[in-house]
């Protein structure tokens, strides 16, 4: 497509292709930065699991339990489906089908809303409190981080739907839908890793950890 025939940005006058390239790069960098944060949470989980400091990784016996892992996988599956829908929608709009993106982003929003509600319910019904040891803390924060991401994902997919309906996302200018799909893909990876960690790493391998006392003043 020649530059003359390409859409131009109303605010800067640059071609949409130039702006989309820039936006994609920005999104990649944001994903890199967010990934470091996710890695921090996962490292915290794995580190505390492997150390089992003061034999206090597991929730106290008799008062609490391990969290059921199926909600993590159900929520991840929902996020995965929503992401696939958004990728499909932005591919269909490339072929001129704007309605498909409206439909797919609406469906993705609905699924993400269900995931968000599910995540809140999961956090509220954990069989332990935040104070019940390192496993409880780590699991709670993996779920909470996912909850915050889901809220943001909901905002983004809702925006894609609104903007497509308003004619801002068009076959010629669909960069924002692609950016949101990229970000959702990252969120899926983060949710997947969180699910794997909470499923695979429950009982600590370190059964003989030293007892440090209470460290109370």
């Amino acid at each position, binding site marked *: 497509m020649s530059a003359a025939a390409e859409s*131009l*940005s*109303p*605010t*800067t*006058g*640059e071609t949409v292709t130039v702006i989309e*390239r*820039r936006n994609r*790069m*920005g999104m990649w*960098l*944001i994903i*890199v*930065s*967010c990934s*470091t*944060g996710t890695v*921090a*949470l996962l*490292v*915290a989980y794995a*580190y*505390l699991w492997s*150390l*089992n*400091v*003061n*034999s*206090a*990784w597991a929730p106290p016996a008799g008062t609490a339990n391990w969290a059921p892992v199926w909600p993590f996988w159900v929520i991840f599956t929902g996020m995965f489906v929503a992401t696939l829908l958004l990728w499909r929608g932005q591919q269909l709009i490339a072929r001129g089908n704007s309605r498909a993106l409206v439909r797919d982003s609406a469906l993705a929003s609905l699924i993400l809303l269900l995931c968000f509600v599910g995540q809140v319910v999961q956090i509220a019904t954990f069989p332990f*409190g*935040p*104070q019940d*040891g*390192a*496993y*409880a*803390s*780590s699991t*709670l*924060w993996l779920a909470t981080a996912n909850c915050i991401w889901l809220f943001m994902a909901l*905002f983004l997919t*809702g*925006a894609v739907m*609104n*903007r497509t*309906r*308003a004619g*801002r996302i068009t076959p010629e200018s669909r960069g924002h839908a692609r950016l949101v799909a990229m970000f959702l893909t990252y969120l899926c990876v983060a949710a997947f890793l969180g699910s794997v960690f909470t499923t695979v790493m429950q009982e600590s391998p370190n059964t003989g950890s030293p007892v*440090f*006392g*209470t*460290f*109370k*003043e």
Partner: protein
Amino acid sequence: MSTAVAIFEQKHVPQPRQVGKPGGFLRRTNAVTALVSGVVLAAIFYVATGAIVNAVTGGGQQDDLSLPEGLQVQITMMYVGWILGFMGGIGAFAGPIRWFLGHDLTYADAEYMAGKDMGRKKFWKYTTDHKVVGIQYLVVMLVLFGFGGLLAMLIRTELGITWAEVFNPNFYNSLIGTHGIVMIIAMIIAVSGPLGNFIVPLMCGARDMAFPRLNALSIWLLVAAVPPLVSNLLMGGIRDGWTVYQPLADQAPVGMIGYQICIIVFAFSTGIASVNLITTIVAMRARGMTWSRVPIFVYGVMGSAIMGLVWFPMYQYSQILALSDRVLQTSFFTPATGGSVWLYENLFWLLGHPEVYVIVLPATAALLELMPVFLRKPLFSFKLAIAGIFGIVGLSAVVWVHHMYMTGWAPQSNYPFMLSTELISIPFSFLLLVMLGTMWRGKPWARLPMMAVYAVIWNKVIGGITGVYLSDTPVDQYMHGSMFVVAHFHFMLMGAGLFGAMGAIAYWFPKMTSRYFDERYGKIGFWIAFAGFQVTFFAMFVAGLQGMPRRVLQFDNAFNVANWVSTIGAYVIGIGMLVFLYALVISWRSGELAPGNPFGAHTLEAQTETPVPHENFPVLPVVTSDPYDFGVPDPYELEDEELIREAEGASKVGAS
């Protein structure tokens, strides 16, 4: 150096429907509305959280509010209210909401948000123009330095008055911690903030940063992050140094929450700024500006931004989890309930050490940038300088454990990390070598920015050599936690970072303010501060070698003389800085008007006029030569001369 190509004609671009006046909601927002809504929402959150805590814990019993947990939740939510209110009041949420609803900015909206024809009001608003953001960063940085410097004077006063106690120990510890983190924040933004925003887009030949609204977001997030930090002094303070190690921080008064909120928000600000800077540099360079023609200052800022982007979230999450330990009673860092203080230290130092390079790299690169201008010769070994910058960026990821030699964590890792830390001195030496090579047989133009080069070379050599000692595990066992360490990192952060920043700001001051920097007062202030700096921190080296521990206000009489000398030096620094600040203020108010290219630089920012036009360049430039080709014949001129000679030869042949 450049030819002109117009890339767009704005009037031909179809515009979305203009709803209301350009700017919309942002017409009604500014720093005052931000302040008011921040305070109001903070108060609402505080009261509402108190009521909820009461209801949950005891049916509205007042006693419950005095519980540490309840109070901590309240204070945390108060700060959250402040941040949300402040950002809402400045107009930060208007853009995302508008975008969500499917509305796009018109050209007129974008022009309003960039502060066109708005006068000085634009400095108090959510303005997107990178030049305005650069000035805002400069002012915030000066305020932070002023505050941090004042705390430094109080610390030195306490240590200098050896015959009496000026402050109580808890307040003294709070001074230390607050001074540390305020100065760290100020130094992180010292060059990358004002100059990264103002100068880098100009150097790249861009009209603005890649994401102008994110640019405004980054500075106002920083502004919002500072009051929680400062307020800690009124709420028990940060008594654990700027590192706020666990579990001490977990047991500290509620002032610690201000620190944690500040870092969490500041990390967002830094991340956003880093994304913006890297994208601008990679994707918005002028036509013809290949990577071999990118100015070295741009490389330095990019290296710093990469480290900030990758490592800051580690620091941010360390504080999120620490706050969670305090408020939600989780146990990430509490050994009694399965947490680990080593986890905190690892997360903290994963940024904590690269942050030194986040500070020093841009300042060093700025000096490398100005050296060819004041020596009128090319930068020595441009590629070696780039190797130095990216060598530091790469190795910065594998040195953090040298801060933990004495913690008992993984002692077997000490020697590999000792090696990696000593290795990083090699790329650092590259940069020094480039400095010295550029100066070799040069004829320096004795202006203030060039003075900073000499000062920084000296400081960096001292700081670097002592750093090599400290990275050595056996030496660190003796030196760790002593005043020697304090002197070392001040030589790096202040000696290389701050003095470099002073030179850089003096160099680009005419571009930023349209006025020459008053070099008479500037030089006086600079050299007084430099002399005071040497006195202060060499005395501190002596105290450290004698065995004086850091972070104590009572010590043996054997250390008295070193502390007296150090305190006198600190006051001298203070006087020098005040003179330098005076020079800056009078230059800004009534300095001599400067032309577009006051020092004859070849980089693009010097090719546009001063004051810089709203869109930076009337037409976008095209780069046709290197930025440091001083003294090198212009190949195009040579080509022209050859053509002329050929033409003359041909005409002679024809005539004969």
